[in-house]
């Protein structure tokens, strides 16, 4: 090591000189002092919306001499109150990432080959609008399908909707994390509305069914704040937190009780708990009587379910189930939460909330007035699978990563795919045209976010920094296309388009005043008088009862060939499947086993069932659909029979820090998929 030699000399000179010095000078030399920081350049702050996920936290960007050099949360922003999640904290790496796309790319080789021709923006917009024109004149039923991000409304998506509207009908979709639309679907069937507010920090008992909510809550900062509230809120009360989940997750580790459950059987557990509450007559009879419909049928549909069967299927001991039912009826208000699971699970869990009388004034759940606030997601899959469009335009989402099996098929059947993205993600890589867009700090914002607790926030702020490259705002691209196709009635430039929308929303003031640090307005967060928009005006059990009739809930459980069950989870650093491209996020992805920079498969040593498999060895995880490579991590805390894999790695490109790193378990299955292991 060369430095040591040089340093050795430095050291020699140091000791030689100091010993020759007079006493006062010795003291001066031997008193170390921090170097003074360099003279400060010109410092300024910009206030804007994080934009890395749909939660819409308020951030403050510190700029010195025009460069963004620091990020912090805005203390009085209602969504994040000064805090940020790891991703927000890493925003600068997204902005300055060396592998950002800078010019439009036209595919040259076969799809996915990574062979591109750089073209000008003019040419890109012209060729895309010509493609759309040709598609419209063709015979295809759907000339264009447009896909944007789910869960938040923003002006860029609105511009895309405008483009889609000018071309046809039923062609605008939003995409979220797989199955993330099911909670809203369940609410719709039971409340008649997709918007249900959810005051987690009111609960005295919070029971989560398979929802690693500290890591994969739709609004990550809100989740951490709610946790701190439940633990040490201002009232001094301490809520009890129970985590029902196949993996000893971060949330399970922080909970008061972890109930390990076989992947995919959480709904079954919720149903048997419902049955227990009913049998013990500890449910909220007044509520069920006055405010629900279909209770008797629902009760009857539970007849076939026995505690023993459920205990076997879920692997939760009967005694524990009984205790849980008692807990639920004694600690009030108790809330049952879940997310991203099958519809049956969502409805079963929400039925528990009804039985606990948890809905409405003072409860944990309440209905919401007003508009939905974001675009309904989840419709794209079925609709486009049946009828692939002539042209697919993807706006800042990565369907090929999030739902590879469905979207590989759709993309293969779609003659032309154009993707707007800042990086070469999986979808961009398989596209015919890639349009590089600004990162959130370079974009103007006008967006609407609804937090889980029902407060809705409208924010409007100009770009925080000047764009670093020749990229464009996604909205600018969509507007240019609309103009090229429809001509005159479209505003001449994106800025005036944004302004006209802000006028409509009465948000211009926010936009202009954002430099003062406040750019948002809270919209009515009030719960409506009646939380139900159903036809009966009540909470309805009927849809759940019908679903129960259709499904055999006690499915056969053993598969000799693939004896293990897959459990998938999204680490907070890779929330929504994104984040692996930023090195600071890589290093915090797996805090529990200090895992980072690879895909690790957690399992109990007995589960490994491979003779001689040791911790850290490379393995294949194989399902009927395919196999992926991972590093085996043996943990005595893991549930036997379960293999847990993180979602968020396994990109073919996505920049140098993600490229070729780890694997995407969504390629081989979903929650509960049967798998087996091989040594690699």
């Amino acid at each position, binding site marked *: 090591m060369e430095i040591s030699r040089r340093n050795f000399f430095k050291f020699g000179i140091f000791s030689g000189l100091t010993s020759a010095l007079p006493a006062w000078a010795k003291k001066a030399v031997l008193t170390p002092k921090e170097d003074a*920081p360099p003279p400060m350049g010109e410092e300024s702050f910009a206030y804007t919306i994080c934009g890395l996920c749909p939660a819409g936290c308020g951030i403050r960007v510190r700029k010195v001499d025009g460069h963004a050099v620091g*990020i912090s949360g805005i203390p009085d922003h209602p969504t994040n109150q000064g805090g940020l999640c790891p991703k927000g904290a890493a925003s600068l790496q997204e902005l300055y990432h060396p592998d950002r796309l800078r010019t439009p790319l036209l595919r040259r080789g076969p799809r996915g080959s990574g062979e591109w021709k750089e073209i000008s923006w003019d040419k890109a917009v012209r060729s895309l609008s010509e493609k759309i024109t040709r598609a419209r004149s063709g015979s295809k039923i759907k000339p264009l399908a447009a896909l944007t991000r789910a869960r938040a409304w923003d002006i860029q998506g609105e511009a895309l909707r405008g483009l889609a509207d000018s071309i046809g009908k039923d062609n605008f979709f939003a995409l979220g994390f797989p199955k993330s639309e099911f909670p809203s679907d369940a609410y719709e069937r039971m409340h008649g509305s997709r918007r249900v507010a959810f005051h987690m920090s009111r609960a005295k008992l919070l029971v989560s069914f398979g929802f690693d909510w500290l890591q994969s809550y739709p609004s990550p900062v809100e989740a951490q704040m709610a946790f701190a509230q439940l633990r040490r809120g201002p009232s001094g009360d301490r809520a009890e937190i129970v985590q029902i989940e196949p993996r000893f997750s971060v949330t399970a580790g922080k909970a008061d009780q972890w109930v390990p459950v076989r992947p995919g059987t959480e709904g079954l557990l919720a149903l048997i708990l419902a049955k227990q509450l009913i049998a013990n007559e500890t449910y909220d009879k007044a509520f069920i009587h006055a405010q629900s419909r279909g209770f008797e049928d629902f009760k009857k549909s539970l007849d076939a379910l026995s505690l023993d069967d459920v205990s076997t299927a879920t692997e939760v001991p009967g005694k524990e189930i009984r205790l849980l039912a008692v807990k639920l009826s004694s600690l009030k208000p108790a809330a049952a939460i879940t997310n991203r699971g099958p519809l049956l699970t969502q409805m079963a869990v929400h039925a528990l909330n009804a039985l606990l009388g948890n809905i409405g004034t003072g409860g944990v759940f309440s209905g919401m007035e007003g508009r939905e606030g974001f675009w309904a997601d989840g419709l794209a899959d079925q609709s486009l699978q049946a009828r692939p469009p002539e042209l697919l335009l993807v706006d800042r989402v990565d369907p090929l990563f999030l739902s590879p099996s469905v979207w590989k098929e759709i993309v293969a059947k779609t003659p032309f795919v154009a993707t707007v993205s800042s990086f070469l993600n999986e979808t961009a890589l398989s596209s015919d045209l890639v349009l590089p867009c600004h990162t959130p700090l370079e974009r103007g914002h006008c967006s609407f976010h609804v937090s889980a607790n029902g407060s809705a926030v409208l924010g409007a702020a100009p770009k925080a920094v000047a764009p670093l490259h020749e990229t464009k705002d996604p909205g600018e691209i969509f507007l240019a296309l609309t103009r090229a196709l429809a001509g005159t009635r479209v505003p001449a430039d994106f800025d005036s388009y944004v302004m006209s929308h802000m006028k409509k929303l009465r948000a211009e003031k926010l936009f202009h005043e954002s430099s003062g640090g406040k750019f948002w307005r809270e919209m009515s967060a009030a719960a409506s008088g009646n939380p139900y928009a159903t036809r009966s005006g009540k909470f309805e059990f009927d849809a759940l009862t019908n679903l129960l009739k259709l499904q055999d809930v006690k499915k056969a459980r053993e598969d000799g060939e693939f004896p293990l069950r897959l459990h998938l989870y999204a680490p907070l650093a890779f929330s929504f499947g994104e984040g692996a491209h930023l090195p600071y996020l890589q290093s915090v992805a797996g805090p529990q086993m200090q895992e980072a920079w690879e895909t690790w498969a957690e399992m109990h040593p007995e589960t490994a069932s491979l003779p001689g498999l040791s911790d850290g060895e490379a393995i294949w995880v194989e399902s009927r659909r395919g196999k992926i490579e991972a590093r085996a991590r043996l943990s005595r805390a893991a549930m036997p029979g379960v293999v847990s894999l993180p979602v968020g790695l396994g990109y073919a490109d996505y920049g140098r820090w993600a490229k070729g790193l780890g694997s995407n378990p969504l390629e081989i299955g979903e929650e509960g998929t049967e798998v087996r292991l091989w040594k690699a």
Partner: protein
Amino acid sequence: MESLTTSRNGFLRGLLGTLGVFLLSGIGKAWGTAPRDAGHGKRPLKPGEHRWGMVIDLDKCTGCGSCVVACSTENNLALGNPQEASMGRIIRWLKILPSHEGEFPTPKQRLLPMPCQQCDIPPCTKVCPVYATFRNEEGIVGQVYSRCIGCRYCLNACPYTCKDFNWKAPVWPEEMRASFNPDVSIRPKGVVEKCLFCHHRLQRAKEEAVAEGRPLRENDYQPACAEICPAKAIVFGDLNNNDSDAANLSKDPRAFHLLEELGTEPKVTYLKEGA
């Protein structure tokens, strides 16, 4: 060559280095005056003197890692890569330290954010032959990169493994240099680094206070981790100010210090989980 001991040449150099250190420690002793620690929590206070400390409430902390990322951004920490990760050489001044107990079906786990404990009696400063690491008047244990000769004595002396060594010069893609926090210098190859309680923020806050002709207020100075924590689990302040939240919380019945028995007197206090 990565390690001092991988060749004879390196071995010799190591030997010489060690001899040199012996020599100097002798000289240091002879001088007897070496003021490596300016100030001590135990001696009488000068009026208005600060003693900065941190309290981390493990009951609120969710192990989310925001503090780790905020620290990395604030202090221009090297990016890291899979190779470094597999060798355990990713440099993070603040890490989430996991610990486990028990096993399925009732395992226990603790995720503990671990910055430099800012010991009042720091073992690390005592062994530095060139006075590159020291404790300043306000209790912050500093690290002067321009003095550090990379002997890693302090790194080994730290009982909390809170110091990191730059085995290689950090690799910074040109584009990312614009993101550097100008208040924090980039470390070269061959020096030790660690959490400094975002000391540069204190320096800036003092500059500002002077410019505005007023005394420093406690809230003028917050490190990046405390500022970003979404659970508000990190409280930072002046332990000498009896009214500060940090001072009060550090005397909470739930308070404990890591490896208390070593007598290092950390200024990072943890509050244990549970009611």
